[in-house]
């Protein structure tokens, strides 16, 4: 750890991982927390899944959503990735003094719309108003509880030969936010993929034990998630670059700005690892949903090169996918 917390510790890459491993796990580590999944599976008569997330996105409104929709979908997704059917949410607001009530009304309305669609309830919450300058407009924290429907989802369940699938094109959310923050950089017809993935996950639970692992590649993108999974499972990945879906607008914007879509955040995509003989079935299940219509098989789990995801380029070369080091910045020249 550095002497001070720099912005890199919030990027979702290796520095974030250091923060968790060096400060949080030593203080609170237990078998639920230490697995570092998207949510924790808790024991009881009915096993529960519990997850929480804080949302500090700027701008608060962006093409494809706003912080309210994001705060609900983000936690629903985390519960679903851990195998849970979401039931109850908490919602806490930290509001900056002077925040327009009309904006808060809109944000809560879209959060409520997602809550209604998902059939869950917001059952507890909190509000704080802080002095001007103490937060950037509005921060939201949500926590979610779900009932465990799919036990055993874990990197440890992955085996060599398993198929790696993604539910659609990658990088849209990260690029959309970047361009919403800096509209003068580039005009592009992009919108966030922010969506509730719990229904798609529930469909995949139908694969039973052939569904090994689910993860939503938010901060740090696909590359960081796969690098972390390979390391924790001590298995490799073989990935074909040309089969990884990226929208043309995202690809072009990334080329122009010097960014890599595989490191850009997603808020409505999942990575699924399934038994090889269930890959087609899993793809078909994903494609039933509008947000999964461009789902794709992108590679396989392998025993060779454990700990390393290897990407085969269309040019016949290959390279490693490594975890994001710090925030991605557009190039200068």
């Amino acid at each position, binding site marked *: 750890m*550095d002497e001070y917390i720099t912005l890199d510790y919030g990027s979702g890459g290796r520095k974030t991982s250091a923060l968790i491993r060096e400060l949080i796990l030593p203080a609170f580590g237990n078998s639920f927390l230490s697995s570092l999944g998207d949510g924790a599976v808790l024991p009881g008569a009915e096993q529960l899944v519990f997850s929480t997330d804080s949302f500090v996105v700027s701008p608060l409104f962006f093409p494809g959503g706003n912080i309210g929709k994001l705060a609900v979908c983000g936690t629903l997704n985390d519960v679903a990735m851990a195998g849970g059917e979401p039931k109850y949410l908490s919602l806490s607001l930290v509001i900056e003094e002077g925040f327009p009530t009309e904006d808060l009304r809109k944000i809560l309305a879209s959060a409520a719309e997602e809550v209604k669609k998902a059939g869950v309830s917001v059952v507890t919450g909190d509000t704080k108003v802080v002095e001007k300058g103490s937060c950037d407009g509005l921060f939201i924290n949500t926590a979610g509880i779900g009932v465990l429907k799919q036990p055993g989802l874990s990197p440890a369940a992955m085996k060599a030969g398993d198929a790696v699938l993604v539910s659609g094109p990658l990088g849209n959310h990260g690029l959309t936010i970047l361009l919403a923050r800096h509209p003068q950089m580039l005009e592009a017809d992009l919108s966030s993929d922010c969506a509730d993935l719990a229904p798609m996950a529930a469909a995949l639970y139908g694969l039973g034990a052939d569904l090994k692992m689910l993860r939503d590649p938010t901060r740090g993108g696909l590359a960081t998630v796969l690098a972390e999974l390979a390391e924790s499972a001590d298995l490799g990945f073989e990935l074909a670059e040309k089969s990884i879906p990226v929208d043309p607008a995202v690809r072009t914007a990334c*080329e122009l700005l010097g960014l890599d879509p595989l490191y850009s955040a997603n808020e409505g995509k999942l990575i699924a690892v399934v038994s090889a003989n269930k890959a087609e079935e899993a793809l078909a299940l994903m494609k039933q949903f509008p947000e999964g219509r461009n789902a794709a098989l992108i590679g396989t789990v392998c025993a060779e090169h454990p700990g390393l995801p290897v990407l085969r380029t269309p040019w016949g070369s290959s390279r490693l996918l490594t975890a994001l080091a710090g925030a991605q*910045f557009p*190039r200068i*020249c």
Partner: protein
Amino acid sequence: MIRLMEICGTHTHAIARAGLKQLLPEGVKLLSGPGCPVCVTPPEAIDALVSLARRPHLTVCTYGDMLRVPGTSPELSLLKEKARGARVEMVFSPMDALSMAERDPGQEYVFAGVGFETTAPGTLAAVKAARVKNVSNFSVFMLLRRIEPAVRALLADSESRIDGFLCPGHVAVIIGEKGFRFLPEEYRLPAVISGFEPADIWLSVKELLRQVREKDPRLVNTYTRAVSPEGNPLALALMEEMTRPDGALWRGLGYIEGSAYALNGEYAAWDAAIKFGISLPRQTAPTACRCGEVICGKIEPAGCPFFGKVCTPEAPLGPCMVSSEGSCAAAWTYRSF
């Protein structure tokens, strides 16, 4: 061994991402050159920006890539200074910095103006806008560089041994094909202006190898969809009007006469170095890291003893491991398997 140099950091990045070095024929090497803006900035300039950021009522605005670059000590970086409470803002354009200055007239805003000919017109346009709008709390710490004097300095070094240049497409958009004619005409060296798609780079490398084999050095432009013979006349006119050539210190290359731009005439009022009394030395202090040799193509990233061991993108010792245009960052992030 045929040693080809890609001058531009964006080429370095594209080559690493597509794994093109693995596919080169035996006996051909692609080396990185002094075309990553952050990498050629000497550590003393980072120190100066950190000291500016420590002043009360002053905000340093910078491109993200500059944030993590260490100065003369690993503890001196803008990102660390920001975490300690200094006002450092990441911007994507000098115009963002100008807008901040306009909204907050009680605070000084200094833009860290790094970059080559590609970036110079945008930086100058912000200075021009500041003059038109009479924004006096905005200034630019001029770290803009010209590529030609750097390439000449490199060629004057007998250790460099370059057989041909992959010339930077983005710089050429501004200065035109004519900006690189000196390579075949004065040095008898093959030179190809290239775009950034793997196919562009491949085509350009093929042409360079043809010129080397047939001893037929000439300037070829394979990026005609963006680069014209004469460049961008509006941008060139702006540079001509607002700047004069100036000497500057480069990492790895030392002090080079005429290699930078100084704001000219009445625009000098927006020069942060003049405004705040900063002068950079003519000599750079020795650094532990070997970025200076990496950007001159003398060693490859893996030739530095720190590469991937104590120097990684999370804990960079030098700029080449920081910038997305840096040779070490590209080689480490996109390491081949």
